[in-house]
């Protein structure tokens, strides 16, 4: 029987490509609307969930407190926060849609198996805006997979969509590689929620050249962007800067992929950062770390060899969250430099110049204090204290990519927009693959999950509606 056969029954009503938060929200919503759903997760079961498995919380609009969220978080404040991080690079209609549709999202999530906890130490600054998943993103993903299975969604692991057949803006079938064999899966509608392309090293190299060889990919190795690229070559309109990614400074000893949260380093504001030549290159104390950590990936990427080294002394060690790799140590600055493989003389000179430039002040990590340098470039504007308390510690840094911004343009019904601006009738997207519509630059903690959940639900609903009429 050929695919042209008009009597041929589709393999399913809704095909969901991807296995993270957005894909699961789409699959559950479509199944609840009565659609027969197949979900393709390219990863094996133990690594299912894409980057969602590394997430921890989600931001949503709420008018009153919940057991796990303080006070209220309303549309205008939410919108202002988004403006602040994106610098206005957003699509207002879509952004406001996400914000409004996020209202009381926690209740919907709990009804689908999610569990929350009140934030404890460490994340209290998010206690009002972000609801924390009990056990983190993998626990959330586990709960969603269980719910999806109960709703009758057919889940296929290690099943990668390698190509899509789209004719005149109409999805027909996907070419799926599953355990070595290739087959076609047809569906009346398709939701693509397969993430960005940050794990495709060749693609990264196309953009950043050899430097990309030294990048660490913080998330899933399965987020290769294959579906994103297919959509773009099949006539979808691109959105977001193809050359930009969200990158932070991570420990250079991190695994190439999937190191997640534990490789981040929060020591920068409490020490100095030098490059492999032993020279400082940016104001380490410019602002609070949660407001600055996301620029350090790019800063480090701009240094020779895409590496840098954060140096602190003994009094700074207790001030930041411990990280997974122990610091390199030295009884003197020179010994530390040698142990880090840095030019000893240059580092000693940099530290001595820095120490001389520190002006007295009242050190206070909880506020933008008045401990600053004077007369050196770059300056250190806050929390500047001389490195004079041995032993000395050093952490090697590399750029760690969290996600890429390039995506597929959508309308308010999550339909893929074609290059001419017309929507595809049965092809939908959700999650990181389209978040560039809303997050043109920057990042706001827990907002990627908000976009994924809201657009996942819209895509699932619209796909089911398309099938069921």
């Amino acid at each position, binding site marked *: 029987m050929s695919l042209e056969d008009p009597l041929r029954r589709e393999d399913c009503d809704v095909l969901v490509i991807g296995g993270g938060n957005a894909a699961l929200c789409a699959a559950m919503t479509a199944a609840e609307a009565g659609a027969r759903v197949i979900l393709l997760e390219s990863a094996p079961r133990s690594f299912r969930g894409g980057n969602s498995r590394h997430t921890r919380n989600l931001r949503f609009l709420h008018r009153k407190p919940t057991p796990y969220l303080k006070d209220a978080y309303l549309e205008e404040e939410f919108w202002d926060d988004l403006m602040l991080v994106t610098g206005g690079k957003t699509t207002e209609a879509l952004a406001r849609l996400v914000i409004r549709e996020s209202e009381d999202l926690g209740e919907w999530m709990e009804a689908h198996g999610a569990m929350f906890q009140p934030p404890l130490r460490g994340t209290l600054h998010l206690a009002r805006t972000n609801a924390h998943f*009990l056990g*983190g993103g993998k626990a959330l993903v586990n709960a969603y997979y269980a719910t999806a299975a109960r709703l009758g969604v057919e889940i296929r692991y290690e099943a990668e969509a390698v190509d899509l057949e789209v004719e005149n803006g109409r999805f027909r079938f996907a070419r799926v590689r599953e355990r070595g064999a290739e087959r076609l899966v047809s569906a009346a509608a398709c939701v693509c929620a397969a993430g960005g392309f940050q794990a495709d090293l060749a693609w990264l190299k196309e953009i950043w050249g050899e430097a990309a060889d030294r990048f660490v990919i913080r998330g899933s190795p399965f987020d290769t962007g294959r579906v994103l690229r297919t959509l773009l070559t099949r006539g979808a309109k691109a959105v977001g800067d193809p050359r930009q990614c969200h990158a932070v400074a991570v420990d250079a000893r991190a695994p190439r992929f999937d190191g997640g949260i534990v490789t981040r380093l929060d020591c920068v504001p409490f020490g100095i950062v030098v490059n492999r030549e032993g020279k400082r290159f940016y104001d380490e104390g410019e602002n609070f770390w949660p407001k600055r950590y996301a620029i350090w990936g790019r800063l480090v990427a701009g240094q020779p060899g895409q590496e840098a080294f954060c140096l602190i002394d003994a009094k700074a060690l207790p001030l930041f969250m411990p990280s997974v790799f*122990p610091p390199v140590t030295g009884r003197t600055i020179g010994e530390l430099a040698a142990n880090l493989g840095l030019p000893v003389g240059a580092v000693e000179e940099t530290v001595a110049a820095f120490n001389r430039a520190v002006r007295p002040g009242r050190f206070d990590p909880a506020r933008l204090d008045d401990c600053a340098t004077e007369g050196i470039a770059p300056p250190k504007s806050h929390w500047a204290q001389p490195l004079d308390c041995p032993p000395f510690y050093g952490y090697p840094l590399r750029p760690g990519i969290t996600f890429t911004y390039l995506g597929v343009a959508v309308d308010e019904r999550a339909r893929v927009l074609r290059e001419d601006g017309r929507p595809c009738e049965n092809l939908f997207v959700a999650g990181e693959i389209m978040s560039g519509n809303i997050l043109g630059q920057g990042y706001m903690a827990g907002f990627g999950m908000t976009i994924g959940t809201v657009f996942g639900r819209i895509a699932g609903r619209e796909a089911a509606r398309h099938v069921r009429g």
Partner: protein
Amino acid sequence: MSADELLREAERVMTICNACRYCEGFCAVFPAMELRRTFAAEELRYLANLCHNCRGCWYACQYAPPHEFAVNVPRALAALRRTTWQEFARPKRFSGLFRRNGLAVLAAGLAAAAVFLLWGALSAESGLWAARSGAGAFYRVIPYGAMLGVFSALALGALAALAAGLFSFLRQTGTKASEFFAPGHQLRALKDVLRLTYLEGGGHGCNYPDERFRHGRRRLHHLVFYGFLAAFASTTAAAFYDHVLGLPAPYPWLSLPVLLGLGGGLAMTAGLCGLMVLKARMDHEPADEEGRGMELAFLGLLLAVNGTGLLLLFLRETAAMGVLLALHLAAVAAFFALLPYGKFVHALYRWAALVKNASEQSKAG
């Protein structure tokens, strides 16, 4: 793995966890971990005993194998916990009983059964297999003085060994006696013990026997725990009847010792059977497989104590009474003899760890 290797593995895992902290809502281990930056042996021994093995952190872990970090907190802590019990055990020469605990329990049980059966056969007036009734019927099988002597000695010995074990816990976890015996900390720990707060998984239950959150294990444990307390109360009441009121056993059905004993025995039996069923169904990946023999031996021995006790109660008017009494006493004797050298000590050290936890969390604010 050797004790040193287990310590190193626990240290490795806790260092990764402390940089992640996603699991802090599950139990007390993670908030306790967050008070530290490094993990010396004494802190790891404490954390291992604070872990209730609820397994929430196993299913939620983004670094669980096959991830290259291969984080398996429940297994690492359970294996370390097992070796700490051996280290805490006093007198030290008995600590080897932890190593092949299943075998030790079986041998002790069989030996005790042989001794009591033989003893009963020799001392009972008309042989073991004969119906007896009326006050003091039990003592006509095993004489009063001997029974009192043997069980007092076993109970006192067990108590002394447990107390010595507690002090080695305090010493080897760097816990000051003053913080441990503070009434406020004891009270908070008592609440955690009586509720099994840390099998509640933040309100959803624990992931046992598999990935789903369920309250089954906590409820079954409550049956065993409160059943044990009821049985203990029954024994105490019987001792009071016998030694103070001068009323020797057996007691009528509607008496305090029988009602408490029956209720407790049935609750414990139901709880133990349930726990065994869960254990048979549980996921093995987060389990400490080497500790399995000890766990089964403990459940089995408690079940033997209960089963023989209940049978004795139901059949005490029949000719089987003598044999059942001998077997029940044998099971109880084996239970007391191995009390400080088997899974029972989890209760002692968990309580001690919860007190330490109450102390340091109240300090941290």
